[in-house]
Each structure stands twice: as structure tokens, then as C-alpha cells.
């Protein structure tokens, strides 16, 4: 595994239950104000991380054929932190065919397909649903591509909960090979029947707000989110935070349970550190996957305890956002970048007593400090793992 040249992250944004945009998210993290609420999306008795106002925010008229909850959230997410304008400026600067678009999602617009099935007309999609452009995995990539009029390589990655972490790896390969000059990456997933009832059928959903790494944790709280980042050559902005490494792996163990010793996750972590040219002691903060499922948190806690010294701080922020599935990678990349930018090291919300498997790295309380290197872990069904490594930009 050889080192990769770092890439500048010249814009980034996230919209989730904890807030719209970076400042709102940072403020929620700092004040420990979580975004989870009792499920008012459907009948299941659980807590969810719902983004308020999506129902009242239709897509602009030009995109009516793309209507879906997922595309509404994608559009809302693009409008935060001036990201849309910065993306258009990059497209103008490099040319539309030289900017790649790589997005991640687990369920794309399946919520719209679920609706079509509820509204079947004599066993067939009704006329309105036949016009919809949302009934396939790539709907997200295709919609954002249309909305931004970007014409470089475009791909939707759908590896469940690691989807929008892996977008950084694919973008790095494209830029490294000179196939594109810049890449817009992101991820969007929205609440829908499939994931709420699906995770519930696997007995992974908690009836209370999720408590990552708590000894009494009882499962996850599902959420929804959109996030984006703009990657460019390091010379575009030397003061911008950087993507310095990534690692991708498979558990080769089970479709919905992690490898019991976390060997796949460890491999992704090791590859990320190797590509970044880092030793574990150089890592200041790790945003953990930390879903609050019994198995994930135990395996991940053991991995962090054996791989890092006590000086590395680690936490799960899913108590603020819920588990946003295919958007978790980009949301938590944003939180890692906020840690680098603002010295804000979030703790773990809702958690009272840490599982004994946790080492000294995992924090309940927030901290402040100088963060130069931050990692983000994302693990998905199918045993799909991704670890990202970020560094602060050069001091101005």
C-alpha cells in the first residue's frame, strides 16, 4: 500500500436531524443538543433522526419528474453552506467534463417506489409514478448530475452504510489517474418503510434514543441526512483540510453481522493509515461507526482499544444524528472535518456508562483541543468497511 498525494477538501456540508449546514451541526455538537425524536414518520415505536421540513420543500419545478423524499433532501443539502455555488464555480473553472460526481446511498428513492406500490392502479404503477425517475439505485447520482449539469464520470456507490465513505476513495482514484480535475462527492439517504421495518425485523432498532457504546445499549436509531464535499488538487487551496488516506475492505464473514474480531474493519483502518503514511499515535480523533448495536460497538471498541494509544480520542456521534445509513460516511466525514477546523471533539451523546470493551480512547464528554489528524469509520451490511483519514490544512 503506497502513500497517496493528499487532496484538498475545498467545500463541505452536511444536513441531518442535528441541523442544516456546518454551523448548525457544530452548534448542536458543542451544546450536546441531539436531533433524535420519537418516530412520527410511521407506526414503529422507536426514535428517529428526521430532517424537519422536507415535506414542505418540493423540488424546483424544473426537477418535478425527480420528486422523492431523497431528492428533496439532496437538493436541501446542496443549498447549505453555499455548496451549490462552490460546486458550480468548480465546474466553471475546470469544465463540466473534468469534474466527477460520486455519491453514496443505501436505498436511494425506494421510498417513492414504496409509495407507488401503495397507490397501485389495478396492479400497475399509476400514471404519475410511471413518470417518476426515482425507481433505481442511481436515481440519486442522476438527479444531482442533472441539477448541477456536471458531465464528468458519475457513479452511485451503494454498499449500505459505508456508501458515502467510499465515495472519497473512488474520487481519489479518478483524480490521481488524471481522469478528472475535481470531484463532487456526497451521500443522501432518507427514512422509508424499507429501512425502518427492515432493521426492525433484524431486531436492531432501539425503542429509546440510541446510546452508542453504552453497556446497556439496545440498538440503533435510524436517521436521514445529506452531505457533500468538493475535492481538488492540493494546490487549489493549501489551507483547506485534506483527504490523506482511505482503506476499504470486506469482512468475508456474514451479511448482517460484523466479523467477531473486527478483522475486516482492522484491515480498512490499517490501509487508511498506510496510504496516509501515519502511525496510530499520530491520530488525534476518530469518529467511530458506533451504531449502538450490540455487536458493532463491541467489535469496534475492541479494535480501537488494541490499535490506538490512550492519547487518541474517539466517539460516536449517532446520538445526535441517528444512523443515517448510506449518508453516515459523508455526515461523519463532515464531523471529522469540523474537528480539524474548529478543535471540537464531540463525545458520545445519550451514553451513561461505557461498555467494558471500551478503552480509554472512547469519550462520553465533549473535548476541545488541537486536532491535526482525524479518522472516520464506516461499516455496512455485507461486511463492507471503509476508513477515511483527514488532516488539517497548512497553517495560513
Amino acid at each position, binding site marked *: 500500500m503506497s502513500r497517496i498525494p493528499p487532496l484538498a477538501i475545498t467545500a463541505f456540508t452536511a444536513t441531518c436531524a442535528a441541523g442544516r449546514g456546518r454551523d448548525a451541526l457544530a452548534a448542536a455538537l458543542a451544546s450536546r443538543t441531539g436531533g433524535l425524536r420519537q418516530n412520527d414518520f410511521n407506526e414503529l415505536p422507536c426514535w428517529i433522526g428526521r430532517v424537519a421540513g422536507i415535506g414542505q420543500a418540493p423540488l424546483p419545478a424544473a426537477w418535478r419528474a425527480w420528486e422523492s423524499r431523497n431528492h428533496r433532501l439532496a437538493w436541501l443539502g446542496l443549498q447549505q453552506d453555499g455548496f451549490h455555488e462552490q460546486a458550480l464555480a468548480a465546474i466553471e473553472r475546470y469544465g463540466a467534463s473534468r469534474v466527477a460526481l460520486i455519491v453514496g446511498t443505501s436505498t436511494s428513492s425506494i421510498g417513492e417506489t414504496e409509495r407507488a406500490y401503495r397507490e397501485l392502479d389495478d396492479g400497475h404503477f399509476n400514471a404519475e409514478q410511471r413518470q417518476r425517475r426515482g425507481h433505481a439505485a442511481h436515481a440519486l447520482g442522476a438527479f444531482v448530475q442533472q441539477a448541477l449539469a456536471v458531465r464528468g464520470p*458519475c457513479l452511485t456507490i451503494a454498499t449500505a452504510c459505508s456508501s458515502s465513505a467510499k465515495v472519497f476513495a473512488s474520487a481519489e482514484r479518478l483524480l490521481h489517474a488524471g481522469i478528472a480535475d475535481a470531484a463532487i462527492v456526497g451521500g443522501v439517504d432518507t427514512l422509508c418503510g424499507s429501512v425502518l421495518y427492515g432493521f426492525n425485523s433484524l431486531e436492531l432498532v432501539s425503542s429509546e434514543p440510541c446510546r452508542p457504546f453504552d453497556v446497556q445499549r439496545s440498538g440503533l436509531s435510524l436517521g436521514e441526512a445529506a452531505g457533500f464535499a468538493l475535492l481538488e488538487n492540493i494546490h487549489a487551496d493549501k489551507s483547506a483540510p485534506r483527504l490523506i488516506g482511505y482503506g476499504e475492505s470486506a469482512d468475508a464473514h456474514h451479511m448482517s453481522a460484523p466479523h467477531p474480531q473486527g478483522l475486516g474493519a482492522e484491515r480498512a483502518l490499517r490501509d487508511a493509515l498506510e496510504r496516509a503514511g501515519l502511525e496510530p499515535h499520530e491520530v488525534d480523533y476518530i469518529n467511530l461507526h458506533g451504531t449502538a448495536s450490540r455487536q458493532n460497538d463491541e467489535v469496534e471498541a475492541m479494535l480501537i482499544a488494541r490499535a490506538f494509544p490512550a492519547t487518541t480520542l474517539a466517539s460516536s456521534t449517532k446520538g445526535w444524528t441517528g444512523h443515517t445509513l448510506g449518508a453516515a460516511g459523508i455526515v461523519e466525514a463532515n464531523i471529522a472535518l469540523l474537528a480539524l477546523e474548529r478543535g471540537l471533539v464531540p463525545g458520545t451523546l445519550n451514553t451513561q456508562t461505557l461498555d467494558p470493551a471500551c478503552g480509554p480512547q472512547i469519550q462520553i464528554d465533549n473535548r476541545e483541543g488541537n486536532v491535526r489528524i482525524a479518522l472516520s469509520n464506516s461499516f455496512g451490511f455485507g461486511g*463492507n468497511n471503509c476508513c477515511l483519514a483527514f488532516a488539517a490544512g497548512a497553517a495560513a
Partner: protein
Amino acid sequence: MNSLAISVAGIGVWSPQWPNWDVAQAMLCGKVETAAEPAPRPAPTLLPPAERRRAPEAVLIAVEAAQQACAMALREPRELAHVFASAYGDLVVNDYLCATLARAPGELSPTRFHNSVHNAPAGYWAIATGCMRSSTAVSAGDSTFGAALLEAALMARNEAALLVVSDVAAVGPLQDVIACRHGFAVAFVLAPETAHSSSGLRLRLCGGTAPLAQDASLLQANHRGNPAAASLPLLAALARRQAATLRASAGPELTLEMEISF
């Protein structure tokens, strides 16, 4: 625009008419006129017997093609990073999910739910082969073949990687919005280009819209509507060992030029 130079080290296919590359190759070369009796579903020996029986068709056809490509390339599957691409994912399980949610959401099957992830074939493949390398599942609509070939080629520049592109037929009401009527899977083991490469593949992106393959002999009725069928011109050139410069859509106004040489 930079080009990527790789090589094709192994090929695998599965469709009801093409149980393997030998049959496909014979038909693509015109040595066999009529299709064989359609096969029901493949039974890839790499999967444990229980999985072979109960795994969804979307998993079986992808794993079958992948297994063939690795065997032809004489590569250990566990050593290959892999890209599994599908425009629509598992349409059978999606139909089940949506129909069950509309009728009785509490009855959703946990197994069928975890099989619904787009990376289910990649997950089953990794588990069956013990492969812990980078594993991804991607989609790009009608341009899935071109976009996924580019993604896999970027990995294969450094070391061999496996690409699988597959879709199954739409079922139930999904047929109203998805034109895919027959399952088809194609797999390639792609490797870095060396002086010994027998099938060199040079990829280059260019603007414009790739014409759909017009060669009627390639566009057999049973592949029509399946996004993986965009691989047919490349398969034909490989079958005939005929140097060619081909084009596949990689997105709106984006074409992947594929220069194949022997």
C-alpha cells in the same frame, strides 16, 4: 484526456441462453446459430450448497459470471478487489419489499431485507471466497457498464481486479418502469497491462453520446433492456479476437472509448 491501459485476463457470462463463455463465444463467432435450451438459474459451485439453493437469482448470476472469469484468469478470487455493478439491484427482492410494506409491513423477512442491499452479490462473493479486499457495489443507470468498467480499471492499473456487471429481469409492477426482461451477468478479471498481456484494453473518456450497439447479431432479443448488455460489443471483439475500437456510454454526454488489441 488521459487513457488507462489494462488487460483482460478472464471473462465470464451468464444468461438463460449463455451458461458460460464457451457457449457465448461460439455464438458470438457465428459458429452456433441457435441458442441452447434456456437454463433456469445457475448453480455456482463456489457458493456453499445451502446458499446455492436459496440465494437470490441476482446473487447467483453475478457469482456465476465472477467465478468463470477468475477460473479463466487462473486467479484466486480471494486476492482480487472487486466491483459489482447493477443498474437496478435485486428487482425480485425490491418487489417483495415494496409489496410487503404496502400490505403488512410487520411481516417483512429479515433475510430478504439484508439481501436487498445493493452490495448483496459482493457480500456473498466475499463470504464465499474469503476475500477481504476492497469490495464495492455501484450503479450508473443505463451507463452502468461503462461507468463500472472505468471504476474497476482504475483499481486494475495497480493490481488485478474483478468487475461484474449484472441485472435480473423486472418482476411485478416494477415492469411498468423498468424495461429489463432477462437476466444477464458479465464478468472480467482486469489486470495491469504487461508485455505479455494477450488482450490489451485501452480506455479513454470522451464527450458525446455513445450510439447503442446496432449490430443485430449482438443485440439478441434476450439481452435487450438489460444494462449489462452494453458489454456485448466488447464481448464480441474478445470472442473473435478482433482488434477494435468500441464505445460504451459512461453517462449523459460521456462516452468510454475501449480500444481492444491482441
